[in-house]
């Protein structure tokens, strides 16, 4: 009979993760303060920003733009008054 071997688990230890629901969605975007948070990919985001502002004039757009890898976070004040965030393009 072949010898039985026990093998050590080489995989990393993943902790139990507490999971949260998504935030409730908006009833409408009209009249809301929506942040367009832009990182990179200007070919897409320039067109997106332009179309959002031109075609969705009932929305109060707040554009936060960086050319770096990480989004510019909302300020404490913006955090209180922002109803939704669009993040793009996420690498």
């Amino acid at each position: 009979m072949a010898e039985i071997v026990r093998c050590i688990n080489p995989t990393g230890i993943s902790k139990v993760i507490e999971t949260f629901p998504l935030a409730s969605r908006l009833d409408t975007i009209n009249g809301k303060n929506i942040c367009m948070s832009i990182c990179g990919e200007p070919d897409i985001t320039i067109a997106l920003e332009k179309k959002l502002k031109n075609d969705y004039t009932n929305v109060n757009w707040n554009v936060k733009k960086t050319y770096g890898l990480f989004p510019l976070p909302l300020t404490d004040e913006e955090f209180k008054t922002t109803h939704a965030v669009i993040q793009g393009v996420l690498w």
Partner: protein
Amino acid sequence: MPYITKLEKAGIPTVIVDLEDQHQMVKQTALRYGVPEVRYIAASRILRGEEDVDQFIEPMLEMLTRPLTDKEKASGKWVPTTNDRIIFEGTMDEAEEFFHQMEYIPHPVNAPIARFTDGLPVRIPTEARVEAMLKGTSHKPDELIVHHQDPMRGARRNPFAFQREGRRPSRSASPEAAAMEGMRRRQGTPVEFQPMGWTATVEKVAACAVMAGCTPEYLPAVLAIAEAGTFIGSTHTFGHWLCVSGPFAKEVGMSSGCGMLGPGNVANSTIGRAYEIMARNLGGAIPGVNRMTSIGSPFEGSRCCAENADGLPPGWEGINEEFGYKKDESVVMVIPHVNDGIRGVQFSPGGYRAFQKSGHGGIARKLGVKGKPGPHNWLEYLIDEFWAGREGAKTVIMVPEMARHLYEYGFKSKDEVYEWLYKKSFIPLGRYRHFSWPDLGTNGWLGIEPTSGKPWKELPDDYMVPAAESPYSFCIVVGGGDEELSHQLSSPHHLGIDPIYSIDAWR
């Protein structure tokens, strides 16, 4: 992703625009940060902006208003499938089959990928073999891998800090460095292996070392490499080479000689391979899922060499000393981004010798020293190619003879070479603007040019700026055989990780 999940948890609905092939990475990362159901929509890699936006803008906005599904409303706990110490029990044949499993990865891979290995056969990590491996360290099997030092600071860590902090890195973290790294990388905190942020014990690293083919005496180096956290994050080619500096290399029979980065030496090959085995198992890195190096490279975590301390010219410090360790202390250096660019083999057979001995041949003609015996500064021959592909400091590997020629020419320390290279890196801003990466690094040229302190946009095209971040972002590795050769790697020290880890801390 941490930002998006923070917003969702705070009650602010979000939608992410990403690229289709990165959906799996988005999902995995969202789970890691506790909001697994984040909404995302793909932009196109190829459509023009207006056309692309036309097709996704409506569904994107609808994601902000469409009511949540039951799944999206759910909270709870995600429990990993197994963290058991023993992952398999059976015959050796069955164990072979188990550890060489593959899983099919759809687009962008469309091929099977190994579940536990780097794609090559491994040695099965039986309990007995791992126990034998653990004799290579005094650390306990159930000890967590933790950071033995604070994040690097100063010139080595922050490319522009050298102007105010000088050349020497401090081993204690400044408040700025601590803030930059966050608390999770402070001394004594568990290492989070990338990309999944998992942790690991000494025993798990030993299991990976067994799989890579290491022997117990190599384990302290593998543990030191583990401390780097298997950083693999990039959509570009992101390979690492490893270099051991200090007496450990000789103790375990590493090669710092001919072919040190090539095949043959067991210590070099298996210690290097362990990086990749750890990335797969401890970090959960899966090509095409959360490891998106588009083409990949044979250099991805596969090679380790040793510095030839005996080949250093007088006054030239070893890598260990350069980073604040003593000559008799052993460290491993992680050289990131190796496969962003390797330049080498610039000299014809005998061409370099003719140049140095008597001033003959093409190199002498280029440098205007025809007929004049050396020592000559051979770096002059290469310097105009250094920034042909991209900006940034380089890691320069050179054989001992060529290091000695630089010393005889007049460079009495590595720092003098670094400072010379930095001075030579200055190019007109108009040319610097032609590099791609500074678009990000300068925040679209909206930031401040560090050497002048003035906004980039106010500087004229003929203003000279350094193509390298700092003198001390360069690195010299002395090693290799007798044939005169140098490689220049597009890999300065500071790209996202600290470069140096103590081996002695893991003995």
